[in-house]
C-alpha cells in the first residue's frame, strides 16, 4: 500500500503530478446513470446500494461465477497510484486512486487461451439510478478492452480515492481505471466482466462510432469531430485556467505505445 507509480514505471511518471483536490474529484463527474449534468452524480449517486456487491465473471475463463466484493478484495495488494485522468471532453484531473491491477483479478478467474477481449458492464438499477429513465445511451453502460490492454500493469481496478472508500459518484464500489485512454473507457460500478474472442460492443461507440472509437486512446493528433484534442484544461484552475498540451497516450506513451505499434492510430480511434 502507499506505493506511487513513480516507483514502478518509467520517466513519464517522474514528472510532478499535482493531484486535484478531493472536492474537485468528487464533485465534477460524468456518470450519466445519475444525470448528464456534472453535478448530478454527486447529488444523486448516494441512492446506489453498493453493499452487498458482486461481479459476475464469465465467458472464456476457467473459474466463472459471481465473485463477492470481499472475495475479490481477498489477498489483493491495494496500492495508491497517482494517474492523469483525461476526459474526451478535453478536461483533465490528476487522481490518487487506490486499487489493484486488473490482471490480478483476471488471473484469479483463469483466462483461457482463446480469449482476446474483456467486456465490462455497469450496474443498471432504474430504482436507484434516476438518469437511466432517459435514453441518453443504450443502457446498461458497456465498455471493453483488448486482452493485452486489460493485462497491462497500468490498468487497475480502483476501490478508493485519497485513501478513502471510493464515493458513489466516482464509481463505487469498484471501477476500472485505464489512464492512457479517454475517461469514458474507465467504466464505473462494474457488475460483470466477460472474457470473449470477439470485440465487445461499447456504449459510446454504439451511440456514435465516428466520435468515440473502441480504442479511444488519448491522442492529441486526432481531434474529436467537434473539438480539438490537442489541448486540455486541468480542473481546479478557476475562471482563468490556462489550457495545457495533451500528451500522447496521456503521458503514458513509453509504457503503452508498444501495444499499438502496427496500428494506424488515425484509423483505429
Amino acid at each position, binding site marked *: 500500500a502507499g506505493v506511487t507509480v513513480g516507483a514502478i514505471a518509467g520517466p513519464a511518471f517522474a514528472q510532478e503530478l499535482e493531484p486535484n483536490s478531493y472536492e474537485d474529484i468528487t464533485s465534477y463527474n460524468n456518470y450519466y446513470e445519475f444525470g*448528464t449534468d*456534472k453535478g448530478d452524480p454527486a447529488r444523486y449517486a448516494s441512492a446506489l446500494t453498493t453493499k452487498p456487491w458482486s461481479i459476475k465473471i464469465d465467458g472464456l475463463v476457467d473459474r466463472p461465477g459471481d465473485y463477492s466484493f470481499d472475495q475479490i478484495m481477498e489477498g489483493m495488494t491495494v496500492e495508491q497510484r497517482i494517474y492523469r485522468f483525461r476526459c474526451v471532453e478535453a478536461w483533465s484531473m490528476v487522481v490518487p486512486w487506490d486499487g489493484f491491477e486488473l490482471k490480478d483479478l483476471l488471473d484469479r478467474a483463469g483466462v483461457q487461451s482463446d480469449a482476446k477481449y474483456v467486456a465490462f458492464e455497469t450496474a443498471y438499477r432504474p430504482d436507484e439510478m434516476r438518469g437511466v429513465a432517459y435514453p*441518453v*445511451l443504450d443502457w446498461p453502460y458497456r465498455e471493453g478492452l483488448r486482452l493485452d490492454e486489460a493485462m497491462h500493469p497500468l490498468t487497475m481496478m480502483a476501490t478508493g480515492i485519497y485513501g478513502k472508500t471510493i464515493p458513489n459518484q466516482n464509481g463505487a464500489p469498484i471501477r476500472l481505471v485505464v489512464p492512457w485512454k479517454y475517461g469514458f473507457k474507465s467504466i464505473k460500478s462494474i457488475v460483470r466482466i466477460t472474457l470473449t474472442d470477439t470485440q465487445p460492443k461499447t456504449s459510446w461507440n454504439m451511440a456514435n462510432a465516428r466520435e468515440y472509437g473502441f480504442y479511444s486512446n488519448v491522442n492529441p493528433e486526432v481531434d474529436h469531430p467537434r*473539438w480539438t484534442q490537442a489541448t486540455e484544461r486541468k480542473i481546479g484552475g*478557476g475562471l482563468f485556467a490556462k489550457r495545457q498540451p495533451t500528451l500522447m497516450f496521456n503521458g503514458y506513451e513509453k509504457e503503452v505505445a508498444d501495444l499499438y505499434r502496427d496500428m494506424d492510430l488515425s484509423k483505429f480511434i
Partner: protein
Amino acid sequence: MIDVLNKGVRRIHAWPLYIVGVIPAVWLIYSGATGGLGAEPIKALEHRLGLIGLQLLIAGLAITPLRKWAGLNLIKFRRAIGLLTFFYILLHLLVWLVLDVQILSQIWADIIKRPYITIGMIGFILMIPLAVTSNNYSIRKLGAKWRRLHQLTYVAAVLGAIHFVMLSKGFQLEPFAYLIAILTLLATRIRWNRKRVVA
C-alpha cells in the same frame, strides 16, 4: 382578466427590465470567479449564458403569439428582451473566445471546422444588425424594411437551437425541448390560410 393585465402592463415601464436582465449575468460571473459554479467554472459559465440567451429568444418570440391568441400585450418589453438576448449571446461568445478556447488560431479553426460552432456563429452574426437597429431612429429611418430585417430573429433562433442540439453528448431531451419550443412559436406566425391573404 386580460384587460386588467394589459392595464397593469401599461402602468409599468420597460426600462427596469434592462437592469433586472443584467443581474443574472453579473451574478454568474461573480459566482464563477468565487467558486460558486463548481470545479470547472468556464464551461459552466459558457453554458449558463448560452442557455439564458436561448430562453430570452423564446421569450421574445412568445410576445406576438401572446397578443394574437391571448390578447396580452407585452410588446413594449420586446426591445429590452431582444437587446438582452444579444447581450447574453455576446457574453456566451466572449467566454468561449477568451476563457475557453484561448488560442486565436484555434478559434478560427473551430469556427470553420466544427459545424455546430459555424452555425452558432452565423446565428450571432445575424443578430448584430438587429441589435444595432433596435432604436426608434432606425425604425423611423428603415420604415417597412425594419420589419423585414427583424424577421432575421427567426433564423437566428432556429440556428441557436440547432447549435444546442448539435453540441450535446448522447441523446438528451433538453436541447430538443428548446428546438421544439422555438419551432412551435415560429409556426404560430405562418398564415395557414394563404387564400385570404391574397384576397
